[in-house]
């Protein structure tokens, strides 16, 4: 009899065994090593680190392997692992001005001090499947040059010098930590940027795209996009000074946005900002556009009712781990509630039918 079946536990165990077998795929085919994933699926690694909020390429590779390439599942594994890590302390803010850039471009100037550096980009590749890669290829070797080690100036600093762009007021206030405190609205900009940088790439991209198509248009130019390594330093109280504890690859995007002025601000350019773990310029640019859209209030702009201007809407729905969990939970049994609905519908229908019959009889 159906209701007497007690199979939950065994069913789960069997499902897990099957999943493990499927994950491995055909055993005749060589198994992927973490190093292969880390080296050859680097952009997937970067996305998992960015949205998992944990910079560790080897763990990200493990998560991707375990999740069979489902990146949201991999991000989930990283987030859950992250929960168990004790918080030792906070690093100093990273200095992206001294980034060793692999790539650095500006769309607002033809050339600028520091130069335009294309770096390893898909941008001008023709998207033709390269069937040479099907066969075991040789390892391609590109020409190399010494990296620029001196600080590369920021494009927005040039504009700032002339007073053409809104000055960001520096602050030493400790930013809120969304992984340690519950989200609160209204959120300040630091908190918004935290939520966006770990937000789902697709969601942030969609929101940014909507502003470009007119839902809260804010006329962005990519003032500067830079990708490269920065040092992470941490104050050690016993030493009394900061020491380098590691290096991370970051993508930073500063947009320059047209602004005709408002009641409180003169006409000037304004800024949007994106900063993401790894090489992920789609995400960094998207983040900068959404950041700018969310700043309408402080800049005295009109709220056009665009989705990307709505802080609570954007930030409450940007996290793919929250979203996928809640979306997929509707797979769980809901038969108790459904039963309640059944009883209600039957009751309402019976009454409606009775009323119709009575009307017909009259």
């Amino acid at each position, binding site marked *: 009899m159906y209701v007497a079946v007690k199979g*939950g536990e065994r069913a789960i165990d069997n499902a897990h065994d099957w999943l493990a077998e499927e994950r491995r795929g055909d055993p005749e085919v060589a198994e992927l090593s973490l190093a292969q994933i880390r080296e050859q699926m680097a952009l997937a690694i970067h996305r998992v680190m960015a949205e998992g909020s944990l910079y560790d390429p080897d763990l990200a590779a493990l998560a991707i392997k375990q999740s069979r390439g489902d990146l949201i599942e991999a991000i989930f594994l990283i987030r859950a692992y992250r*929960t168990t890590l004790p918080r030792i302390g906070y690093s100093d803010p990273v200095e992206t001005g001294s980034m060793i850039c692999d790539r650095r471009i500006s769309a607002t100037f033809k050339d600028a001090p520091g130069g335009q550096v294309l770096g390893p980009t898909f941008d001008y590749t023709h998207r033709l499947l390269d069937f040479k890669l099907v066969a075991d290829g040789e390892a391609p070797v590109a020409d190399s040059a010494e990296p620029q080690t001196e600080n590369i100036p920021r494009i927005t600093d040039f504009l700032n010098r002339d007073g053409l762009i809104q000055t960001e007021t520096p602050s030493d206030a400790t930013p809120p930590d969304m992984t340690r405190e519950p989200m609160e609205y209204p959120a300040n900009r630091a908190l918004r940027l935290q939520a966006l940088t770990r937000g789902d790439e697709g969601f942030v991209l969609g929101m940014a795209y909507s502003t470009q198509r007119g839902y809260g248009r804010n006329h962005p130019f990519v003032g500067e996009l830079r990708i490269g390594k920065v040092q992470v330093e941490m104050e050690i109280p016993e030493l009394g000074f900061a020491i380098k504890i590691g290096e991370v690859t970051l993508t930073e995007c500063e947009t320059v946005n047209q602004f005709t002025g408002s009641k409180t601000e003169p006409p000037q350019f304004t800024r949007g900002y994106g900063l993401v773990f790894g090489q992920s310029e789609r995400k960094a640019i998207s983040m900068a556009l959404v950041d700018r859209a969310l700043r309408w209030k402080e800049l005295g702009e009109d709220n056009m009712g665009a989705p990307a201007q709505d802080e609570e809407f954007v930030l409450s729905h940007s996290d793919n781990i929250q979203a996928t969990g809640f979306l997929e939970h509707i797979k769980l049994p809901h038969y108790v*509630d459904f039963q*309640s609905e059944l*009883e209600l519908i039957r*009751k309402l229908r019976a009454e409606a039918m009775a009323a119709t019959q009575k009307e017909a009889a009259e």
Partner: protein
Amino acid sequence: MSDYNFAYLDEQTKRMIRRAILKGVAIPGYQVPFASREMPMPYGWGTGGVQVTAACLTPDDTLKVIDQGADDTTNAVSIRKFFENTAQVDVTECTQEASVIQTRHRIPEEPLTEDQILVYQVPIPEPLRFLEPRETETRKMHALEEYGLMHVKLYEDIARHGHIATSYAYPVKVEDRYVMDPSPIPKFDNPRLESAAIQLFGAGREQRIYAVPPYTKVVSLDFEDHPFEQMKAEQDCDLCGAGHTYLDEVIVNDQGGRMFVCSDTNYCATRCDAGHRGRLSPEEDAA
């Protein structure tokens, strides 16, 4: 799993959750924000309940986990296993034996005692959410005790359908102050929200904890001329014959044949063991 702390969460996190629970107990029905952690099961699958349970468990506790009233539904099995692995606590299916019960969508039929904690998994803690999606607005409405919108909604139901068309997650008012979502339990269970046990509600994704302390007044919202009504299938349980329990309807054959059985599987099994019989009970062995 031995690398993890007792009940998975580190002590700092548990302390933070306990603070939120204490605040919730002090202000019955009030949603306390807490810094919910990412758990190794998905949001929406009981992470709030799991965190509350983790913060309440001691090594001497006996844990029961149910989903839809049943101990053997897959997610209940999974959560029970999680705590067996990470906290090594005793587990049970017997309601009376449990000191902590984590539940999704039901309150056990057996009345709970002062020695028990009932932990609910909550998907959307905000009873006003579907009337006003903005957290910034609903928090204000609670602060000002501005619940007119909810009454208008219930009134519109009556005007349109003749009844309040809410059959689960039926809103309640706690201790004459906060309107609270009792989680998606069928409204059949609402009267049992007034209990001797402490009731804790955890919403992980929405980062909220709230509580109904023992013997707290909990009133299902209604009108004088349309009083709150409990609702269940009219049948008796086909296995144990109970006429007073919440029943699941199970389709048993291609002709649409149905049977009705207690959703609380432990309660039903206990009654069957005690000799109660229903319409479809197996024949007694002719010894």
